[in-house]
C-alpha cells in the first residue's frame, strides 16, 4: 500500500507539491490570529493552589499589579526642592495612568501629627518650592524613619525614591498592559526632559508583563536568522546537494507557517516558551529529511536511477521515521502534564509540527527531488568509511567501554541531587533586557521585588482593633524584621502606633499599640475620615475589619531560601498565633512552588510517555529483550545531563523541569534507528552480535551523528535567548542530546554485544 502511495507521489509530483503548499498556507492563514500573552499568571493553571490563594487575597483587599517609578537624582539627594518638585509632579501625573487605583509616593504620603487637640492628616510634601533647608531636612528625617516608607519608597540614606502606581487591569484585552507601559514610559521621558538631573527606572509587575512579548519578539528577531543560517550551513556541508538543501528549507518554512497558523486557529496564546517552537520543530524536520535524503543520494551514487533511488529510500525509511515521529510526538504530548500552561502549549505545538514534518517529508520532499535536477555525487559524502573504523574501535574496546561508560554514567547521575530549585522570576530575563536592568537597580538601591503577603484573620468582625490581635500582628512583624534578607514589613500596627502617639500630643512615650479595642477602632475611624481619594486603607483592611494584609518585602534570594523563611514564619504562627495562621501568598510564592510542582507533574507525564514508548518499541522491534534494553539508552542521557548540570550550574527551575519530556521522544529516535538496523542484521542477514553492531554503525551511524549535530545546534541556538527560561532549556536539551549520541555510540553497542539476544 505504501508503495502505491509513493508511486503516486513520485508520478504526480506537481500535484503533490501544489497540494502540500496550498494546504500549508491554508493552515498558516491562522497566523493572523496569533496573540502574545502578557501576564505572568500565564505560567499558572487556573486550579493552581498558590494562584487561588493569591487571587483570594487580592479580591479581599485590592489587586497589586503595579508600576514602580524609581527616581535617581544625579546628586544622590532626594530632599532638594528640584527633586521633590519632580516627585510631586510625577505623583500627580501618575493618576492619569490607565486603570490606576492609587499612587503612593513620599510626597503624597499621609503624614499625621497633632496640632493642639486636632489630628492633622496631610501630604508629607505639599509645596516643594516653598520648603526651607531646615524643612527639607525635617521631611527627610520623617520619611527615612517611618517604617511604612523606608526601604519601600525611600532608601535609608535618601538617594533614591519610588512612586508606586497600583493598577487594576480588567484583564479583558491584551492591549491593557502595553497601554499602561507606554503611558508610563512617556511619563518617564517627559520627566527626564523637564528635570535633566534625574534618571527614572521603570519596574513593577506590569512592566514585567510587558517585557514578556517584547522580549519574545526580540528573541525571534535575533534567534531565527541565526537558526536559518545554521541550518543552511549544516545542510550544505552534510548533504552537499543544493536541491536537497533547498527542498529541506522549503519544508521547514512550510511546516513553521502551518504550525504557527494552526496555533492561531486553536487560539493558543504565544508565550516565551512557545517562541522556541519553530526552532524545535525545525531541527526535528531536518532529521526526517536527512534520513531520506542520505539514503536517496547514497543509492544514486550506487548507480540507481533517480526514481528507484527514491523509492528504495522511502521504503526503508518509512517505518523508522513513522516510529520516531510517533515517539517524539508522545514525548512532546507528555508536556500536557506540566503545571505551567505555556509548556503544555509548547508540547502540543511541537507535536503538531513533528507530525506535519513527517507528512511533508514523505510527500513534498520526494516530489521536489523528482522535479529538481539531482546529480549523483561521487565519493564518500558522509564519511561512512570513518564510521566503519569507529565501529571497529567500539567492538574492540567493548569491555572497557561498558565499564568506563558505566562508571561515568553513575558518577554523573550521582550529581543530580546537587541541583537546587530556583525560580526567581526576574531572572527569567537576562541582563540585556531593560526590565531586568531597572529591577536590578531597584533591588540594589531602593526595595525588593519579591513579596510574601498574608491576610491575617482575627476571627471576628471588627477584630483588627482587638489589642491582643494587634499585639500578635506586631510580634509577627518584629519576628519578620529580625529574619535575614527581609527588607521591609508593612503592618497595620505601625499606623496604629503612630495614631496613638498623635492622639497624645505626639509624645514618643505613646508610640505603642492602644490598649483598648474601641479606642483603636475609633482612631482608625478618625484617620479614615481624614484620608484623601485613593489613599484609603481598603488595601490593608477587609470590609468586615476582621483581617489585615501583612506584606513582607525580601531581598533577591533564591526561592528555596525564601520558602525556608516562609516555613519558619508558619512555624512561628503555629506556635504563637494558631488562630491567624495562613499560608503566604504572592507571585513570588507562586513561582517558588511552580518548579517542584512541575517536576512532580512532569515525572508522571514522562513515566507514562516512557511506558507507552517502550511498548511501542517492543511491538515495533518485535523483541521484549531489545525493547527492554532500549530503556537504558533512553533514560541514561537525561540522568547524565542533569548530573552534569548539577556539577556546573546547580540551579534548576520551571523550564528545566520540562526537559525530560522534551528530550525523551527525541532521544528515543536515535535508539530506534540503531536498534532497528541491529535487529535487521541479526534477523535478515543472520549476523552475530558484533557484526550486527558493525552493520548498524555503517548504515545508520552517519545519519545519527548528523541529525544529532543538527538537533544540538538547533537547541544550542536557544542558549542565546534573552529568556533564561529558554536559554537553560535549550542548553540542557542540547547536552541531553549529546549524551544520547554518546550513549548510543559508546554504551548501547557493548550492551548489545553482551546482552543483545541469543548467539546465533
Amino acid at each position: 500500500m505504501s508503495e502505491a502511495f509513493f508511486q503516486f507521489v513520485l508520478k504526480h509530483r506537481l500535484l503533490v507539491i501544489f497540494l502540500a503548499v496550498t494546504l500549508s498556507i491554508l493552515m498558516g492563514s491562522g497566523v493572523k490570529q496569533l496573540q502574545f500573552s502578557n501576564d505572568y499568571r500565564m505560567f499558572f493553571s487556573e486550579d493552581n493552589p498558590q494562584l487561588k490563594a493569591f487571587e483570594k487575597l487580592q479580591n479581599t483587599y485590592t489587586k497589586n499589579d503595579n508600576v514602580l517609578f524609581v527616581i535617581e537624582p544625579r546628586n544622590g539627594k532626594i530632599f532638594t526642592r528640584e527633586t521633590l518638585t519632580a516627585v510631586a509632579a510625577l505623583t500627580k501625573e501618575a493618576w492619569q495612568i490607565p486603570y490606576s487605583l492609587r499612587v503612593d509616593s513620599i510626597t503624597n504620603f499621609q503624614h499625621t501629627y497633632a496640632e493642639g487637640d486636632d489630628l492633622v492628616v496631610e501630604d508629607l510634601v505639599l509645596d516643594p518650592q516653598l520648603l526651607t533647608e531646615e524643612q527639607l531636612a525635617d521631611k527627610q528625617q520623617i520619611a527615612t524613619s517611618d517604617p511604612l516608607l523606608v526601604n519601600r519608597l525611600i532608601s535609608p540614606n535618601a538617594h533614591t525614591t519610588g512612586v508606586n502606581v497600583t493598577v487594576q487591569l480588567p484583564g479583558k484585552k491584551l492591549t491593557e498592559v502595553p497601554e499602561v507601559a507606554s503611558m508610563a514610559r512617556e511619563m518617564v521621558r517627559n520627566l527626564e526632559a523637564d528635570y535633566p538631573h534625574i534618571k527614572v527606572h521603570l519596574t513593577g509587575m506590569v512592566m514585567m508583563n510587558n517585557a514578556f512579548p517584547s522580549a519574545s519578539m526580540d528573541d525571534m528577531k535575533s534567534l531565527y536568522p541565526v537558526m536559518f543560517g545554521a541550518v543552511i550551513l549544516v545542510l550544505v556541508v552534510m548533504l552537499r546537494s543544493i536541491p536537497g538543501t533547498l527542498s529541506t528549507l522549503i519544508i521547514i518554512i512550510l511546516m513553521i507557517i502551518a504550525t504557527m497558523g494552526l496555533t492561531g486557529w486553536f487560539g493558543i496564546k504565544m508565550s516565551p516558551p512557545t517562541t522556541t517552537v519553530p526552532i524545535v520543530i525545525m531541527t526535528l524536520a531536518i532529521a526526517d529529511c536527512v534520513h531520506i535524503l542520505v539514503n536517496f543520494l547514497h543509492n544514486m551514487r550506487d548507480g540507481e536511477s533517480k526514481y528507484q533511488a527514491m523509492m528504495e529510500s522511502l521504503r526503508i525509511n518509512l517505518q523508522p521515521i513513522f516510529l520516531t515521529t510517533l515517539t517524539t510526538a508522545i514525548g512532546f504530548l507528555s508536556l500536557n502534564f506540566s503545571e505551567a500552561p505555556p509548556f503544555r502549549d509548547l508540547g502540543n505545538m511541537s507535536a503538531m509540527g513533528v507530525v506535519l514534518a513527517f507528512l511533508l517529508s514523505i510527500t513534498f520532499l520526494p516530489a521536489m527531488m523528482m522535479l529538481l535536477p539531482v546529480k549523483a555525487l561521487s565519493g564518500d559524502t558522509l564519511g561512512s568509511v570513518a564510521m566503519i573504523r569507529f565501529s571497529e574501535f567500539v567492538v574492540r574496546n567493548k569491555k572497557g567501554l561498558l565499564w568506563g561508560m558505566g562508571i561515568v554514567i553513575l558518577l554523573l547521575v550521582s550529581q543530580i541531587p546537587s541541583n537546587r530549585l530556583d525560580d526567581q522570576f526576574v531572572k527569567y530575563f537576562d541582563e540585556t533586557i531593560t526590565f531586568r536592568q531597572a529591577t536590578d537597580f531597584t533591588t540594589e538601591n531602593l526595595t525588593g521585588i519579591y513579596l510574601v503577603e498574608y491576610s491575617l484573620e482575627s476571627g471576628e468582625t471588627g477584630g483588627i482593633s482587638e489589642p491582643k490581635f494587634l499585639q500578635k500582628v506586631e510580634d509577627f512583624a518584629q519576628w519578620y524584621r529580625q529574619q535575614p534578607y527581609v527588607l521591609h514589613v508593612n503592618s497595620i500596627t505601625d499606623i496604629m502606633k503612630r495614631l496613638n502617639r498623635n492622639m497624645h500630643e505626639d509624645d514618643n512615650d505613646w508610640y505603642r499599640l492602644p490598649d483598648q479595642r474601641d479606642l483603636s477602632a475609633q482612631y482608625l475611624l478618625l484617620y479614615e475620615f481624614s484620608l484623601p481619594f485613593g489613599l484609603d486603607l481598603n488595601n490593608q483592611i477587609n470590609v468586615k475589619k476582621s483581617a489585615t494584609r501583612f506584606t513582607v518585602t525580601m531581598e533577591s534570594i533564591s526561592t528555596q531560601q525564601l520558602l525556608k523563611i516562609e516555613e519558619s514564619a508558619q512555624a512561628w504562627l503555629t506556635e504563637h498565633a494558631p488562630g491567624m495562621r495562613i499560608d503566604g501568598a504572592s507571585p513570588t510564592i507562586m513561582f517558588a512552588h511552580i518548579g517542584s510542582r512541575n517536576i512532580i507533574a512532569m515525572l508522571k507525564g514522562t513515566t507514562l510517555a516512557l511506558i507507552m514508548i517502550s511498548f511501542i518499541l517492543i511491538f515495533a522491534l518485535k523483541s521484549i529483550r531489545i525493547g527492554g534494553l532500549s530503556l537504558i539508552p533512553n533514560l541514561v542521557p537525561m540522568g547524565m545531563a542533569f548530573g552534569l548540570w548539577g556539577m556546573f550550574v546547580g540551579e534548576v527551575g520551571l523550564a528545566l523541569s520540562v526537559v525530560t519530556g522534551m528530550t525523551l521522544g527525541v532521544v528515543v529516535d536515535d535508539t530506534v534507528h540503531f536498534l532497528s538496523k541491529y535487529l535487521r542484521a541479526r534477523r535478515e542477514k543472520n549476523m552475530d552480535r558484533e557484526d550486527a553492531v558493525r552493520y548498524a554503525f555503517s548504515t545508520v551511524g552517519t545519519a545519527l551523528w548528523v541529525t544529532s549535530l543538527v538537533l544540538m545546534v538547533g537547541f544550542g541556538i536557544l542558549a542565546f535567548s534573552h529568556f533564561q527560561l529558554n536559554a537553560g532549556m535549550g542548553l540542557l536539551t542540547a547536552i541531553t542530546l549529546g549524551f544520547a549520541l554518546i550513549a548510543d555510540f559508546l554504551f548501547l553497542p557493548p550492551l548489545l554485544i553482551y546482552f543483545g539476544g541469543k548467539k546465533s
Partner: protein
Amino acid sequence: MKPILIPVVLFFAPAMALAATAEERGLEIAKEIEVRDTGFHDFKATMSMLLRNKHGEESLRDMRNQTLEVDNDGDKTLVVFDEPRDIKGTALLSFSHKAGDDDQWLYLPALKRVKRIASRNKSGPFMGSEFAYEDISSQEVEKYTYKFIDEGGHEGIPSFILERYPVDPNSGYTRQQVWVDKERYIALKIDYYDRKNSPLKTLVFRGYQQYLDQYWRADEMYMENHQTGKSTLLTWKQYDFRSGLTDGDFNKNSLKRAR
C-alpha cells in the same frame, strides 16, 4: 406643578432650551432640584450600609442621621454610629458650606473627646464603603459647575442627563453624569468618572418616596465600583421630617450627648 400647566411648559420647553447654552441649562436644572428640596427644615433617619467586596464578603454599618437645613449655606448634619460595636456612640458633625471646605468634628467616646478633622482632603471612602464623603454630603449647587448633555431615560423614566464638574480641586472625580427625573427633579442615577476620566462608580437611587407631599427621598442608594468590583448598598429608613431639631442640636456639645 399643577397638571393643567404641563402642556404649556412642554410647549415652551424647547424654546427655552434654544435660548440657553448647555451650561446655563445644566445650572438651571441643578437650581430647580435645590429649589424643590428647600424648606424641609430638618429630618431624622436611620442609615445602614451593606459593604461587599469582590470575594463576596459582606459587612454592615448602622448609623442615625439628623440633618438641619441652613439658610444660605450648606446643611448641618450629625451622624451617630451604632454598628460596628467598637465605634458605637461615635458621632460625626459636619457643616457643609457652599464655598470652601466643609467643617467636620468627630466625637470619640473611648477618648471622651471631640476631634476636629483637620484634613483639607476628605474625598476618601466613608466608613470603608464605596461612598466618598463628597457623595453623601449636602449637594449644594455651588459645589459643581454644570452642563446639560441630553434628554434620555433611566428605567423608563424620562430624564435630563447633565454633567457636573466638582469645584474642589481635591475631589476624586473629573466629572459626574447625572440622570434627573424630568418631572420630579430628583437624581435617578449618577456615573462617577475618576481623575483620569475613566468610569469609576455608578450610584443608582431606588424606591423614592415623597415626604410632606414635597420632598423625595430614596429608600436605597446602590453604589458599585467598576474598577475594584466592590459595592455598597445604603438603605434609609424611618424618615422623620420637621422633627423639631434646632441649631442647638448641632454643636460640639451636642456631639457628646448624641449617643
